[in-house]
């Protein structure tokens, strides 16, 4: 096991090329939008700004974070760009590295992203003194794939309601997987996964698909289960979308694998669907049907334009199929979710056909 003290590279987006960060000698550290840091980011940016980005910035302003040797920001949306702009106000000494992210997955975009990744590798190497070799990168991809596959298996068990600790427990692992060194977490998670299934209290709940952007708190998942829901599928950028299995092919340029892999990941709302156009609504519908969900819960942060702009189409699509949708607006506090408890409970009651 790797005992040398590695450097820490902060990141904030599920599109971050973690295998590259790790191979370049950094422990990727996701700055999760959690905790009690006071609201200050609004004065640097604006109060009407993505709460995810504000909370991340608040944590930096409040020193509620370890020191970082680099911050890797993905140019995924307006708010992320503004985060890159604002970081030096909070942490002037930490270098910000922006990775531009195309919107489509055609060859032109893949090549551009490959060059972006190469440029990022060089910037990282300037900090760590370690430009990863091709072999190291292939290895790192394979290691992250092991972790991603493990999560896929655990996710299926959580969906069935048989995972010890349920969704909240799984979310805890999701959090740790992006804040602790990969080797450590992989070993622990393998042990956990080998454990036998235990039927969970959620097993009898009303099956729902939970999708959206950021919902990092473990308590949030408890809240859904206590309300009588069973999350049969979860599609969040702080959950199942955090890690994806990339193709492994030692004969191919690993940067190309990373570039293509990132652009073909399960998309989030910032990704534009040109073919077929506006496919997000269809994807949500398909996923709900495939997983046997009886209702869909969209957890979307306030001020997240890419998601909020798409909700009308999602709503229209689901309504056409008679699939109930509940939209919850979040702000990265449990308080706001707690205030929407009545809606969650009413939604579950509705799905269960209460008192029909």
């Amino acid at each position: 096991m790797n005992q040398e003290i590695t450097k820490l590279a902060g990141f904030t987006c599920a599109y971050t090329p973690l295998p590259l960060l790790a191979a370049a000698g950094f422990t990727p550290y996701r700055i999760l939008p959690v905790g009690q840091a006071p609201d200050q980011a609004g004065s640097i940016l604006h109060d009407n700004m993505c709460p995810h980005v504000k909370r991340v910035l608040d944590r930096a302003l409040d020193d509620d974070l370890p020191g970082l040797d680099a911050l890797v920001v993905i140019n995924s949306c307006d708010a992320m760009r503004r985060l890159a702009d604002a970081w030096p106000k909070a942490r002037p000494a930490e270098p910000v590295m922006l990775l531009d992210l195309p919107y489509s997955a055609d060859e032109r975009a893949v090549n551009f992203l490959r060059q972006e990744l190469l440029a990022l590798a060089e910037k990282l190497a300037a900090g760590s003194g370690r430009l990863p070799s091709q072999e190291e990168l292939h290895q790192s991809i394979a290691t992250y794939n092991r972790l991603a596959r493990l999560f896929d298996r655990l996710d299926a068990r959580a969906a069935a309601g048989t995972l010890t600790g349920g969704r909240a427990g799984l979310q805890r692992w999701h959090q740790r997987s992006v804040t602790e060194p990969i080797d450590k977490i992989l070993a622990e998670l393998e042990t956990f996964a080998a454990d036998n299934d235990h039927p969970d209290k959620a097993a009898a709940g009303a099956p729902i698909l939970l999708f959206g952007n950021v919902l990092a708190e473990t308590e949030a998942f408890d809240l859904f289960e206590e309300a009588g829901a069973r999350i049969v599928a979860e599609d969040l950028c702080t959950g199942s979308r955090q890690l994806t299995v990339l193709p492994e092919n030692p004969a191919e340029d690993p940067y190309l694998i990373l570039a293509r892999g990132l652009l073909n990941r399960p998309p989030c709302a910032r990704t534009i669907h040109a073919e077929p156009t506006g496919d997000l609504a269809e994807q949500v519908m398909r996923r709900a049907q495939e997983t046997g969900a009886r209702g869909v819960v969209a957890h979307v942060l306030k001020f997240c334009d890419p998601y909020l702009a798409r909700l009308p189409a999602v709503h229209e699509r689901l309504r056409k199929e008679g699939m109930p949708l509940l939209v919850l607006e979040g702000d990265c506090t449990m308080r706001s979710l707690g205030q929407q408890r009545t809606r969650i409970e009413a939604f579950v009651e509705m799905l269960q056909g209460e008192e029909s």
Partner: protein
Amino acid sequence: MFYLGVDVGSLSCDAVLVDEQGQMVDWAVIPTGARNVESIAKVQRQILAKSGIPLQQVGATIATGYGRDRVEGRLASVTEITCHGRGIQAALAGTEVLVDIGGQDSKAMLLDGKGRVLDFAMNDKCAAGTGRFLEAMARTLEIELAQLGHLDKDAHGDLTLSSMCTVFAESEVVSLIAEGAAVPEIVRGLHRAIANRTRTLIKRVAPNLSGLAVAMSGGVARNPGVVRTLGQVLDCEISVPKEPDTIGALGAALIARDRSVKR
């Protein structure tokens, strides 16, 4: 046996008692106040005294409203949404769209005509467009709340309020008074503002209202001005049940009965 529904709302604490057949026996409404546990006990005592039914005769209690989890001895908590859906079915059978405007929440529900909820929408967290808002405006205009709904009968202007935020609307009303606008016109403007906001909420669950039976519940349904204006902006008939603020408690009582009888 009798069954009790208690609706602990943000402003009023309501109780309804139904009998074995689901017929309403009695109801009571008191202000929730700052200490809801006390109000809950009080409204329970009150309805039992009023109806002369001893506590032992109460088979089950269902609690609803934002304070539902504070009700001791309840069989279960059920949300206001489900309860209003169930309650309106008993009060106005066949209702397909129900809007409940209470003290701090407004909710629109799409029902299957048999009391089951198909879809619902709730207002944002602030009190814009709810009973609390109207109360604040009545205070600013120095008129009784119960009067508010009658004042605008003869107003016809199209004075509009640009803000629905209680704080801003208050200062807007103050400046309208200063400019010499007639109170009935201001009241009409307030009602229109609430009606427009409510229409948006309703259209989220029912984009097309034609042919649907629409009803309104909650304390604000006691305000005929709001009901009239909402009917105008929606271009439809709006039914209001008797004692509209007890519909949630009625639904809760019926659910208590359904669950007990089924068992």
